[in-house]
């Protein structure tokens, strides 16, 4: 096993990896941009190195600098987390070339499976159904012609993409060119690669993905599915496993297809095959993520496997410690992504200081947080504060536990969060019945507004009592009776601002 490892990431996933390393006795080196000098992942690591200014291209995407830091600190491996450099084959090559271990698949496997377009070709060859699309050319005229052939509505997607970045939904030919341009710019900015491709939009699908794992001895398994149909802006916000849609037969067929694909490609380490499943339970391969997923914890909870530790073990050359038959799902897990964003305003990101974060604590409740009390949410990165994950005995139990946990998750400050929205998602009849498709949020929660409205009297009373307790009447302050309430004396309250 490695004795020292660099984490080429930030936020909750860096924290998650650092903790796994600490348990395994692996020393950790964190990296940070100027925006993150005081953040949690930096505080928890054994050592930390500044990489550069806030923009990702100059910090968390600065491959050469990051590798140099790893070498300078005597690291033996680099864990890329998700996002940033995690699916960058050039980076994986450079890591290997510098004599370090990249915790993930080989660059070759990454190229053949990680590229959305190459993976589609590979799957088609292996007989796995794929979503109809076009990926032959980057030329605008070719793309326009192909779009007509595929038919609208369709999706413009970034070849190097993930997390909904560089993705645009196009409903008519007139929208195509602006969508191509905007998607390319966003893709270049996020991944340093502006290639795009087209994909037909499947009508109201479920988004269901399979976790796979391969080792260096030719063994591969899947760790079952994750249902990720609750999305906004093409990005998952609630995930669960098992999927309420799959039955044993479909689960087995999809899992076997996933394992076959992984074995055919000689894929090692953790990966995820995303599928769309339509109303007739046809499944279509969508893309492969050649890295750890954000939503990996729900798989950990129902399978009992620590995926980050397994990544490290497999990267260090250990064989998978189980075969497919050893694995089974137990209980029901749900993850909610706690974002700094405003669900009442197109889910646009919010920024500000987190003055107080109180994470829920209880049996079966797990919080993977990257941001906590005192931290600043800035413009520069993904606005996810934390992942709230629960394991229940079954789906209703897990929903009850998640609603409890959401109601007990306190985030105070100028930063707006999606917690009240998530609570309404969990309470929605379509979610409760397990009948969510990827258009659920757009269709059924359009125009969502927080129920809270103006502060009720009890909240005002609480604020006033807290203000009073924070600044009790000064020793010299004149005592005033009820009748005197408008005397200037009792206007010296801690929160007396402005006039009436």
């Amino acid at each position, binding site marked *: 096993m490695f004795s020292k490892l660099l984490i080429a990431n930030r936020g909750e996933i860096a924290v998650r990896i650092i903790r796994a390393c600490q348990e395994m006795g692996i020393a950790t080196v964190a990296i940070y941009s100027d925006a993150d000098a005081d953040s949690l992942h930096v505080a928890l690591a054994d050592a930390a190195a500044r990489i550069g200014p806030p923009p990702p291209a100059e910090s968390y995407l600065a491959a050469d600098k990051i590798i140099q830091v790893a070498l300078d600190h005597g690291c033996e491996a680099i864990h890329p987390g998700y996002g940033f450099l995690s699916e960058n084959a050039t980076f994986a090559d450079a890591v290997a070339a510098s004599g370090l271990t990249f915790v993930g698949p080989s660059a070759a496997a990454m190229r053949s499976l990680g590229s959305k377009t190459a993976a589609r070709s590979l799957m088609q060859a292996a007989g796995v159904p794929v979503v109809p699309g076009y990926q032959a050319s980057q030329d605008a005229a070719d793309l326009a012609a192909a779009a007509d052939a595929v038919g609208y509505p369709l999706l413009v997607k970034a070849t190097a993409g993930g997390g909904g*970045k560089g993705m645009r939904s196009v409903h008519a030919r007139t929208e195509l060119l602006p969508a191509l341009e*905007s998607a390319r*710019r*966003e893709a270049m900015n*996020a991944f340093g690669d502006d290639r795009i491709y087209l994909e037909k939009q499947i009508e109201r699908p479920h988004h269901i993905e399979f976790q796979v794992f391969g080792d260096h001895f030719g063994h591969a398994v899947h760790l079952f599915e994750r249902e990720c149909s609750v999305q906004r*802006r093409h990005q998952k916000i609630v995930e669960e496993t098992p999927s309420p849609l799959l039955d044993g037969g479909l689960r087995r067929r999809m899992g076997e297809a996933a394992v076959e694909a992984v074995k055919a490609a000689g894929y090692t380490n953790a990966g995820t095959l995303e599928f769309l499943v339509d109303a007739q339970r046809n499944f279509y391969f969508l893309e492969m993520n050649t890295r750890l997923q954000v939503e990996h914890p729900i798989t950990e909870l129902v399978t009992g496997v620590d995926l980050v530790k397994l990544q490290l073990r497999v990267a260090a050359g250990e064989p998978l410690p189980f075969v497919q038959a050893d694995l089974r799902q137990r209980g029901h897990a749900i993850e909610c992504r706690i974002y700094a964003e*405003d669900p009442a*305003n*197109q889910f*646009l*990101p*919010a*920024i500000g200081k987190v*003055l*107080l974060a*109180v994470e829920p604590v209880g049996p079966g409740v797990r919080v993977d947080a990257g941001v906590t009390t005192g931290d600043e949410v800035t*413009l520069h990165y*993904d606005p996810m504060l934390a992942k709230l994950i629960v394991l229940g005995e079954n789906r209703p139990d897990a929903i009850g536990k998640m609603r409890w946990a959401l109601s*007990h998750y*306190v*985030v*105070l*400050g*100028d930063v707006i969060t999606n*917690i*009240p929205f998530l*609570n309404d998602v969990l309470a929605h009849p379509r979610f409760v019945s397990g009948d969510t498709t990827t258009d659920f949020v757009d269709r059924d929660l359009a125009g969502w507004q*927080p129920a*809270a*409205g*103006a*502060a*009720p*009297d*009890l*909240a*005002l*009373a*609480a*604020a*006033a*009592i*807290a*203000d*009073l*307790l*924070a600044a009790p*009447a000064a020793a010299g*302050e004149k005592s*005033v009776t*009820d009748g005197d*309430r*408008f005397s200037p004396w009792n*206007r010296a309250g801690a*929160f*007396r*601002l*402005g*006039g*009436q």
Partner: protein
Amino acid sequence: MTVREFQYQTGDEVRTVLVEAQGDQFVVRIGDNVLHLSARLAANGRLDLELDGRRLRAYIARSDARRYVSLAGNTWTLQPPDPRRLRRHEANDGGSLTATMPGRVLDVLVAAGDQVQKGDTLVLLEAMKMELRIQAPAAGQVARVLCAAGEVVERGQLLVELAKP
């Protein structure tokens, strides 16, 4: 008994809260509503309340100007009752385009005097690797451009003023 007065703005309303304290017992008057509460400040911003035999846990945080209250899973931000603030909000009529998220101005695609059509993109904003188009809500003429490429803008900040046609 000492009575303290506090004022908070919530939504568009300014509310006056009068508090009398005796030990951990409080009488709170808000308009005609009189609440008899017991309260105790615990660690970590938690305020334990009891009202009519019902126990509740509030969390309170404070910045210089604002109070943040969490109660039963809901959160409210209380503003200081600043009349200027109120006026500024009201000034946001349909002819002005404000930043709907905090971010960096990627590009300004119009200049003062330009004629624009409904749906035209006026400004490109970016934050957290996400791009957002600020579009014209109706046809008109650009009266003023109040931002420039590269500038960091706050949520709600005025970016472009349109003159009605």
